[in-house]
């Protein structure tokens, strides 16, 4: 009897959640539709204008937004007492990136102006024929910038998880363009690392998001004064295959301008495999230091809206 009651309760809860999800889903779809219609009739600029009241309402009425953004803002700006304006700037900047992506997706002829700092260095590293690992993070306008990298005459592979893969495919489907990079899924065979190492042995580029930790080996690093965990698979891959690593981060620098810049270059190595976590820690810290330098200049282009220090 008790079991039956419990089952009914669970079922009722499921239906309620499903209903909520449907309403939430419909509201999301409505929001997207309004933005697409605005873009169609008023262009890129029109959608940017619409962002002001939308982001403003979120910041005024959503407690959740403040909870999620303040985890980062309190560490980045420890001396401030009020973070409302910073929250607005952070959410507004993220929303602009979403609009940009949608705008480029809807207009195959639209282009952003990109600048790559360190092209010669990039070409020199690729000239060694050892392949290259590009480490990046969820900052700036990375989707747009990476799909517009200059022709380096080397195939580019991106190690990413399923949702990001879908987003990338969706973006290029909308633009009716062939995806300029090959996607290696990190939930595939051996986390995609074997496929990545094969690509490196052919002298190709492998791009990896090195900020978010999900599972596997990790290192503890100091980021904005607090300890957090970051994945070390990328550094191990580089050490095993003797591949150089660059930290390449992108930033939105204007309405239709972006910057792609090399922030650090290094070659991970290890002496004792059994101490790989300890030995890779210094490389993980180097990556995080580069990220800190980036955030000194672009503090509102940090798009990890969760407790990064408890990942």
């Amino acid at each position, binding site marked *: 009897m008790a079991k039956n009651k419990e089952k009914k309760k669970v079922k009722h809860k499921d239906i309620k959640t499903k209903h909520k999800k449907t309403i939430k889903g419909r509201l999301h779809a409505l929001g997207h539709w309004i933005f697409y219609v605005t873009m169609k009739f008023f262009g890129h600029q029109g959608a940017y204008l619409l962002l002001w009241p939308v982001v403003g309402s979120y910041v005024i009425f959503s407690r959740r937004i403040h909870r999620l953004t303040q985890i980062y803002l309190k560490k980045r700006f420890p001396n401030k007492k009020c973070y409302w304006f910073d929250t607005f700037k952070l959410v507004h900047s993220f929303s602009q990136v979403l609009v940009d992506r949608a705008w480029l997706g809807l207009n195959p002829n639209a282009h952003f102006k990109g600048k790559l700092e360190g092209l010669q260095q990039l070409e020199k590293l690729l000239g060694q024929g050892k392949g290259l690992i590009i480490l990046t993070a969820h900052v700036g306008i990375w989707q747009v910038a990476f799909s517009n990298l200059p022709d380096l005459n080397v195939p580019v592979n991106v190690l990413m998880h399923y949702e990001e893969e879908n987003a990338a495919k969706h973006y290029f489907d909308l633009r009716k363009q062939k995806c300029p990079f090959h996607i290696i899924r990190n939930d595939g*065979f*051996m*986390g995609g*690392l*074997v*496929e*990545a*190492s*094969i690509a490196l*042995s*052919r002298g190709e580029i492998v791009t990896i998001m090195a900020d978010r930790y999900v599972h*596997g*080996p990790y290192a503890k690093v100091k980021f904005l004064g607090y300890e957090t965990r970051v994945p070390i*698979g990328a550094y*191990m*891959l580089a050490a*095993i*295959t003797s591949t150089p690593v660059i930290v390449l981060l992108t930033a939105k620098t204007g309405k239709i301008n972006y910057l792609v810049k090399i922030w650090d270059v290094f070659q991970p190595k290890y002496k004792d*495999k*059994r101490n*790989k976590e300890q030995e890779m820690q210094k490389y993980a810290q180097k990556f995080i230091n580069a990220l800190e330098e980036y955030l000194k200049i672009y503090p509102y282009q940090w798009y990890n809206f969760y407790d990064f220090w408890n990942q």
Partner: protein
Amino acid sequence: MKLDLNELKQKLKEIIVRDLKLIDITPEEIDDNAPLFGEGLGLDSLDAVELVVIIQKNFGVQIIDMEEGRKAFESIETLAKFILDRQKEDQNS
């Protein structure tokens, strides 16, 4: 010196134990058909990357395609057969 299948399997086991620094197992204890990853030998994804490099360095065989890599990495048996096949192909070409 060209190795036959059994010699190659033995050599692979020795190299894996030595280069992957496996401490709880000897080459003799490795079953030819046991899975290399997960429940079998217990290797992880980074060991798999090392294995790609080890095979290239010791046997001159490069894994260039993910599908052939996936099949080759099933066990010592499949890995040894893969290496022999590729060496034969290289000799013939």
